[in-house]
């Protein structure tokens, strides 16, 4: 039996409280939460120990703990907590702090978690696009030419190849680098704390990914049962939109690449957008958008419906939900206004859409978007460490 030295950290306690865990201190360690939880392992179950560790400010035990991600915030614990300590919300707050801990630069992490900095963060993508429009004189939409056949063509407002793609590639690269650094540190910390040599990572990864795709853990939730459906819709709509985007890239750059190779481009490579509504790529994109709309509205609806039992959630949660909602809303409206040929509405909506999407991409490692990466990592780690 090794002796542990406990080092309480009052600042960390205050951080958890201010990150959405304001009920933290109410916990009196009865363990009802761990008993009602359907997703915790039986050995050293969560969230009771996390509640105690957070109450004592034991930062090191929490930030690098895979269990915080095994939790899917079903909120069964919160609903049954006799003291209103809302363990589900507290674990959410700890996850936020963990994300911030592993993502760098630190100032971005801090800003992403604080409502005070929202406008500042949002101003960056907006300014990027407005600056371009200002320089090119396209702030006056009358200067944006329309296609005689296709009508409004967004690439005539902001060119895809020469502006949008470089910006997004840079943002994506930044996000990937930040994620990679964070994940490596997280994995190393988890390994050190667990003291395990590590098991079969490939097998664990396959198992974790199948579990994620099937939403098996989500289905164990009781109090917030509907969440698995809304999450499936959002999750698979993102998958659909990712496929759509790739497909669009193929349409756009396929002919160029083929010409470059001295080949005759295939007919179905449509080149510049917009594409007809009957095109399979367009159908997939629109279907995904519809699924996203339904999914994110369900997310919001469920959150509000369950707020009495599960808590309403923190700014961090709502920022993410809000961004996804506006990505969806501006995306759909851009298309609608374009088809209706109302340039005065279509262009600003499109600029807003680009800004929200860039926000989502660039800040992904610092926002709740990062949960997909960290949760997957933690699940893989837990599986290879035999913690089910």
């Amino acid at each position: 039996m090794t002796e542990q030295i406990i080092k309480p950290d009052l600042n960390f306690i205050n951080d958890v409280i201010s990150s959405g865990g304001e009920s933290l201190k109410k916990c009196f360690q009865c363990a009802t939460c761990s008993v009602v939880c359907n997703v915790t392992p039986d050995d050293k179950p969560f969230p009771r120990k996390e509640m105690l560790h957070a109450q004592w400010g034991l930062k090191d035990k929490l930030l690098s703990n895979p269990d915080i991600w095994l939790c899917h915030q079903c909120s069964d614990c919160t609903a049954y907590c006799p003291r209103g300590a809302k363990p589900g919300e507290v674990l959410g707050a700890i996850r936020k702090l963990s994300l911030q801990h592993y993502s760098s630069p630190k100032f971005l992490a801090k800003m992403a978690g604080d409502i005070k900095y929202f406008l500042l963060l949002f101003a960056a993508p907006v300014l990027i696009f407005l600056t371009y429009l200002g320089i090119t004189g396209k702030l006056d939409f009358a200067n944006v030419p329309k296609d005689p056949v296709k009508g409004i063509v967004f690439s005539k407002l902001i060119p895809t190849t020469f502006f949008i793609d470089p910006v997004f590639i840079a943002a994506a690269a930044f996000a990937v680098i930040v994620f990679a650094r964070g994940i490596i540190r997280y994995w190393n910390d988890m390994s050190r704390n667990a003291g395990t040599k590590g098991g079969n990572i490939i097998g664990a990864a396959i198992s974790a990914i199948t579990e994620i795709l099937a939403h098996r853990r989500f289905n164990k939730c009781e109090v917030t049962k509907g969440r698995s459906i809304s999450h499936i819709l959002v999750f698979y709509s993102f998958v659909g939109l990712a496929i759509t985007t790739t497909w669009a890239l193929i349409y756009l750059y396929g002919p160029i690449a083929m010409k470059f190779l001295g080949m005759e481009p295939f007919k179905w490579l449509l080149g510049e957008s917009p594409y007809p509504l009957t095109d399979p790529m367009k159908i997939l994109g629109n279907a995904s958008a519809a699924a996203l709309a339904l999914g994110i509205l369900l997310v919001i609806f469920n959150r509000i419906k369950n707020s009495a039992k599960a808590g309403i959630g923190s700014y961090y949660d709502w920022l993410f939900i809000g961004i996804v909602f506006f990505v969806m809303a501006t995306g759909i409206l851009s298309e609608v206004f374009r088809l209706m040929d109302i340039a005065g509405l279509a262009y600003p909506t499109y600029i807003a859409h680009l800004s929200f999407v860039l926000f989502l991409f660039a800040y992904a490692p610092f926002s709740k978007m990062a949960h997909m990466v960290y949760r997957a990592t933690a699940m893989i780690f837990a599986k290879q460490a035999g913690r089910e």
Partner: protein
Amino acid sequence: MEKKYGVYICKGCGIEKAIDIEKLSKNAAKGAKVPEEIVKNHAVLCSPEGLELIKSDIKEGTNTIVIAACSPRVKYEEFDFPGTITERVNIRELVAWSQQPNTEEAQMTAADYLRIGIIKVQKGTLPEPNVLEDLSKTILVVGGGISGLSASLEAANAGYQVVLVEKEAELGGWAAKLYKEVPRQYPYEKLDDPIIFSKIKEVESNLNIKVFKSAVVEKTEGQPGLLDVTIRNNGTSETIRVGSVIMASGWKPYDAAKLGYLGYGKPNVITSVQMEEMAKKGKIIRPSDGKEAKKVAFIQCAGSRDQNHLPYCSSFCCATSLKQAKYVREKNSDAIAMIFYKDIRTPGQSEIFYKNMQNDPGVLLTKADVTGISDAGNSSLFVEAENALLGEKIKVEADLVVLAIGVVPSTRAPQEYLDGLTEAQKKGDVAKNAYLETTPKPEFILNLDYRQGPEIPSLEGAYGFADSNFICFQYETRRTGIYAAGCVRQPMNISEAQLDAAGTAMKAIQCVEHVAKGIAVHPRAWDITFPDPLLIKCTACKRCTEECPFGAIDEDEKGIPFYKINRCRRCGTCMGACPERIVSFKDYSVDMIGSMLKSVEVPDEGLRIIALACENDAYPALDSAAINRKQLHPSVRFIPVRCLGSTNLVWVADAFSRGIDGLILLGCKYGENYQCHFVKGSELANYRFSKVQETLDKLQLESERCQLIQIAISDYDKLPDMINDFVNRIEEIGPNPFKGL
């Protein structure tokens, strides 16, 4: 008084359906030799019409009344006829509700009970109270802490003169040493300033309260109403007569020197008492270097709930530590207070305070078994603990450790000293003298002039508290007229102590008022009878003086007993003890009960068994069994007694010579957790009857025919079976060979 009898039988509550009332009336008249016309009945005797029937007879001169109806434990207000001898015969619970209706057995049982009741009033006389002269209604309060001050004010505000004795130079006790108090009012968030100073002012300006400071009680002589208390104050002694005493002598903190394993002795380990002093002075610092303490650890149950130290919980230490955690947090918002507990126990509203304090981010709580305190270098300390939720074995750094220390009642030291003396005495004079020479005498509190010792006696399992184990009567001590309030009675917080003091003041007032009217105080708080021995026949055997549980009887130089009647609780233990059977009450005597049990009809066929039932627990248990419609064995007749301590051995001879087949004594549990209202009545009865069983054996009467059963009121559901078992054993033994002789 010439007796004019009236016998009234109620037909209500199912009595008429179970018993032939006409037959019962005739039988009563015949068996008990009363004229048939005085036996009346009514459909509902407790109704206005039924009561009118009795009252009109009283107007006509009836003065000796037997009411055969429900249990005497109910309807006592309806059937209260002052100036008469009234006896209640319980044919509802003991017959109609617990016997097979309309059987010969039920009829015989009812007839027996009615006859027993008539015999009882025939043997009794109308009691008159014994009021002593020169009684005082002044109340003495010993101890000027929160309990004593509150009790003094309660009594004084009710119009009584109070004498308050405080051994320190100033009033206030521990409550005056606090920096702040646990919040008293909703929402229980803000610490309150100590309430004690306003109480001190109130007491010192109250004209009904005479305060003696730097004073002790040198001697307490006499009996309630006539207690002569000698108070020594500044070298002079003064004797004051008081009526009753409130003992609020408080507590001492447990000796922290015994808590070396928790680091006491290291400069940065202090007790909760020292923490109050420190907070009162200003900053929370490390005594070693005077630097502000930023990590303060509180060790709960320091020496409490620990068989090696204090085995009990002191009830307020958890709230005290939470309060002191607030001192730490309020004086420095960067500081943390860590509380290591066995269980957080915050009784009453202090639970809300606990929840509030728990919500403070800088108050960290964990359940843990603290195993020791070690040095962490630089005068800092490690709290070492096991079985904590934080880990099986943990170490937490602290720069100040506060031991939440428990309560030791002020009665403990004198009790231990006196118990030691008793032990030494048993070994002879040499051992006794050696004990007196070598053992330092602690401060005594009351210095009672009692043959059973100068202080409130110790009680196994009470850990030195002035407890009586009268579980239903919390302020009672085992000395009549002396009531304990506050932490001398059990550990409690300031709010509880004030409530306790109010309760105790009420008891002390009840005592002086009852004594003034010649009524017993506790537990027979209605009783105006008293033991009245026929001393001409006394053989000076001293059994009564030895056995009286309340020291009410002393003997003169010839060995003849005399009563300090206001100490007496009217249990009749003296009556049971007396081999000459000379102790009697007006409505309770050896001859009376003997005649009653001799009047039970012994059938030629079948068994007849008598049960003497203690009226405090056993008799209510019988009622409860009957209310739950449990069947009581038809061979048994239950006769209530004041206490099994009052059972006289001659009743055994009375019963068996009449041909009774068996005798059961139903009494309270005795031993460490006794429930006897008179402390040791059933124990004494058991002792006496073990002697009688030898005699029975000599008479060739099986000793198993006589048995004592200990029963608590809550055992009512098991009682019928216990009785059936006894009857079955008697059946196996066979009928009493003296039957029919």
